[in-house]
């Protein structure tokens, strides 16, 4: 049991940050929502529709999109192809056996537009495995944006990105948030990021919901201070 009876509603236009120590169950919580792991009990609703029994791909088509904590791309395909595949998945033309890919210029154009947004257009012909780590992280985000789901789930999108690269991704998230009709879930360890972006923070600890509320309130609460930031340990450790 990695996540225990967490009940939450997420609303369009709101960015919810999920924090908690390593192994708290954040990624597992994402897995439950996007379907990588079936929940042993409990349900997941999207727009009031129960999607608990559905497969990953069905949930994706229903509007749940996610970027992975550990980069998870198509390593031997080009950058453009990676994004194009996502655009194609949405287009419903994927069982087309007979037309040449090059005849679907609209898909390519859309993919290129997205690469432009994440500033990867120049690398579009490059094979993903030759991409730098930071650029792979960007591509991970690009795939999610290409999917354009109702619910965006970012799992530590800036992890492993350098200080000057991270803002590109954060700006994109900000942009999405400004559209006001997307639900965004964000797992992030960097507190300054959370402070600027989050409308709400939920804290997971040992798989349970430890706190839930507006950023300022949550960060000040004892439970967070103790469980996550390690305050209060000083007393315990004093005698060591």
């Amino acid at each position, binding site marked *: 049991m990695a996540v225990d009876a967490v009940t939450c509603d997420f609303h369009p236009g709101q960015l919810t940050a999920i924090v908690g120590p390593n192994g708290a169950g954040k990624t597992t919580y994402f897995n439950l929502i996007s379907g990588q792991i079936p929940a042993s009990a409990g349900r997941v609703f999207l727009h009031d529709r129960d999607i608990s029994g559905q497969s990953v791909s069905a949930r994706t088509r229903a509007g749940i999109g996610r970027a992975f904590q550990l980069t998870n791309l198509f390593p031997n395909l080009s950058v453009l192809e990676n994004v194009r595949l996502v655009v194609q998945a949405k287009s419903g033309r994927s069982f087309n056996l007979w037309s040449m890919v090059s005849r679907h210029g609209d898909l390519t154009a859309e993919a290129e537009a997205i690469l432009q947004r994440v500033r990867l257009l120049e690398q579009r012909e490059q094979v993903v495995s030759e991409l730098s780590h930071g650029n792979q992280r960007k591509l991970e985000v690009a795939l999610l944006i290409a999917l354009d789901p109702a619910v965006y789930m970012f799992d530590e999108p800036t992890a492993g990105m350098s200080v000057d690269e991270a803002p590109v991704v954060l700006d994109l998230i900000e942009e999405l948030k400004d559209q006001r009709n997307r639900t965004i879930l964000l797992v992030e360890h960097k507190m300054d990021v959370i402070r600027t972006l989050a409308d709400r923070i939920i804290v997971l600890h040992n798989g349970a919901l430890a706190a839930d509320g507006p950023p300022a309130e949550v960060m000040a609460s004892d439970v967070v201070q103790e469980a996550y930031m390690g*305050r209060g*340990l*000083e007393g*315990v*450790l004093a005698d*060591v």
Partner: protein
Amino acid sequence: MSDPILKLEGVYTNIAQYHILQGVDLQVPRAAVTMLLGRNGVGKTTTLRTIIGHWRAHKGRILFDGEDITKLPTPAIARLGLGFVPEDMGIFADLTVEENMVLAAVSGPINSARLDWIFAAFPPLKTFWKSEAGNLSGGQKQMLSIARAMVEERKLYLIDEPTKGLAPAIISTMARALKDLKDQGASVLLVEQNFAVAKALGDSANVMDDGRMTWSGEMQELATDAALQERLMGLSLEAH
């Protein structure tokens, strides 16, 4: 300071095409706890893995007890007297606690006095001695992982984030056990995100950023200088 038990000189480590460590210098003094600190992803774990030989330094030297171990295979390094507690604990889930411990006692049967000492430090291990390690809770796994390293006397312990996901009460037990080790004359290189623990345990500290050592000195000095912490590790949270 007497000659260090472990010395890294300009170590560079690549993982696939990523340049992770970019010239790490590090000295671990004898009979002391040396902290290795830094934000997520700066290369702390990679440093430990390079020392034990899981990753290969492709430049630079690693000296253990005066011997160059840079090119030695992992088992040979371990047999020189290194105990390793990996970030993911490396528990053999299919084996019982006992089997895990037996395996860790490389040179023969387990010394019963030492076992008693371990049981005293981590009582749950005695309770679950015959059960499968995979069924232990996270904290218990962490205890087992450290107990495995302690089951035989080693010259140097490499311990990666032993307190993550642990409840404060257990953290203090853990801290006490580590302190015991030090008092017995062992040397410890400890990676720790929890600054409170680091403060309580560390004798000296090394801070990494971007695959390099950015600061080395007495723990005392770092602990008392909030501005330095902020600069080195972005621990803005503390100042909040």
